[in-house]
């Protein structure tokens, strides 16, 4: 029997789905017929060589990139029509910092927090700065921060709204050993709190220790989608080296 609308909505709550998604940049196909379903509380590692389509997949899931073909859905609704609900619950780390160089880390967080409409903004900012050991450098211009500190500020921005969904593209880039360990500890704990984590990294070992599900891409196509423990690691690595 078909579900009533409210029931159907409850069943789909927090589910992200790609249905036969392809994305083209001119003649170049970044994604080809990718279908995925990500449930709340899942931790998903995106793995693949450079140019496999990991970044495009993350951007499509976040509603930043519109599929050329197929559909991206959140709670059963097309992200093309309605992405505001997902965005209010989303933390996103990309190759770019999304931070203004002329402003301090604190000013950047305050600005973004206002755009998110956060209620207790000062507290959220302090928490995010504390989480990434940035309190002492919070009032320095972002332009003057080192690569590692900039990445920590970028992560603080992504965690500012205590997001339900975290999409992280190479989040460990530029971090020192101590910061890497802290971020790993933080990411491991997210699914236990019901948060959905989708991230990419070039280190399979590092990613596999943090995720339960592996989505491997090659030339825009889904090569493997399943538990990390069952993944054909050697053949995926070999593909990555080619």
């Amino acid at each position, binding site marked *: 029997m078909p579900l009533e609308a409210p029931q159907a909505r409850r069943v789909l709550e927090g589910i992200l789905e790609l249905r036969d998604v392809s994305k083209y940049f001119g003649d170049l196909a970044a994604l080809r017929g990718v279908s995925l379903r990500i449930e709340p509380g899942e931790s998903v590692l995106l793995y693949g060589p450079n140019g496999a389509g990991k970044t495009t997949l993350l951007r499509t899931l976040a509603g930043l990139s519109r599929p050329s073909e197929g559909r991206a859905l959140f709670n059963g609704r097309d992200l093309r029509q309605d992405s505001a*609900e997902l965005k209010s619950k989303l933390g996103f780390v990309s190759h770019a910092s*999304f931070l203004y160089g002329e402003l301090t880390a604190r000013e950047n967080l305050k600005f973004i927090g206002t755009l998110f409409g956060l209620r207790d903004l000062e507290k959220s900012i302090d928490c995010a700065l504390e989480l990434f050991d940035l309190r002492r450098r919070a009032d320095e211009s972002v332009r003057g921060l080192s690569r590692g500190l900039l990445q920590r500020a970028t992560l603080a921005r992504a965690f500012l709204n205590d997001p339900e969904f975290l999409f992280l593209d190479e989040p460990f880039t530029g971090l020192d050993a101590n910061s890497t360990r802290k971020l790993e500890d933080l990411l491991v704990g997210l699914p236990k709190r019901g948060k959905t984590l989708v991230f990419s990294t070039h280190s399979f070992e590092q990613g596999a220790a943090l995720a339960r599900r592996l989505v491997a891409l090659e030339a825009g196509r889904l090569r493997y989608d399943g538990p990390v423990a069952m993944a054909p690691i050697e053949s995926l690595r070999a593909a990555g080296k080619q």
Partner: protein
Amino acid sequence: MQSLRVVWAIFAKDLRVEWRHRETLSAMCVFGLLVVFLFSFAYEPGREESLRLLPGLLWIAFAFAGILGFNRSFAAERENQCLEGMGLTPADPGAIYIGKMLANLFFLGIADVVVIFAVVLFYNFSFIPTLKWFSLIVALGTISYVAVGTIFGAVAANTRMREVMLPVLQFPVVLPVFIGAIESTTAVLRGENPSAFAGWLKLLAGFSIIFLVLCYLLFEYVIEE
């Protein structure tokens, strides 16, 4: 209410960024002053000649100062893909547009005032007798120009030849605004009856409203990929 907070946050952020590097406003004012200064050498600023040439000169200075401002306005957004970062928040894209537009309007408004003061000094020309109508025309023309310039600034920011693309994209669209602004400025400075330029004023007001509403609605498509 949240949209108003977003508008204010973006406006205040743009002012703070400009206060820190002081590039946009100074470049706009210097460029406007340069146009006024060079023209003052080109002809003897007698009263009749001034009345004939000043409207065009003023709007050329405003137009070029604006182009510089719109390009710079999105340079900061482009640097770390901050415009995309704003698109990752649930903020209404229309509110983001209004915030950017108000900041651009503030900067071009200051540049307009600087250019007008320079005209008063270099051409020994007084705007006092026509100040009310002249101010209204400058305000309406500037609002229309900034409304279009802000959205095309965002479009051009994602292109390779952005400095070239912005005027190429923008000027055909705002041409009626400049024609209306120059015609009405000429009539006002000549001391003509308001009924003589009421049509141009209505055109400017109409364009301001249409451009603001259209750009508010379309900005969503500009900030997405």
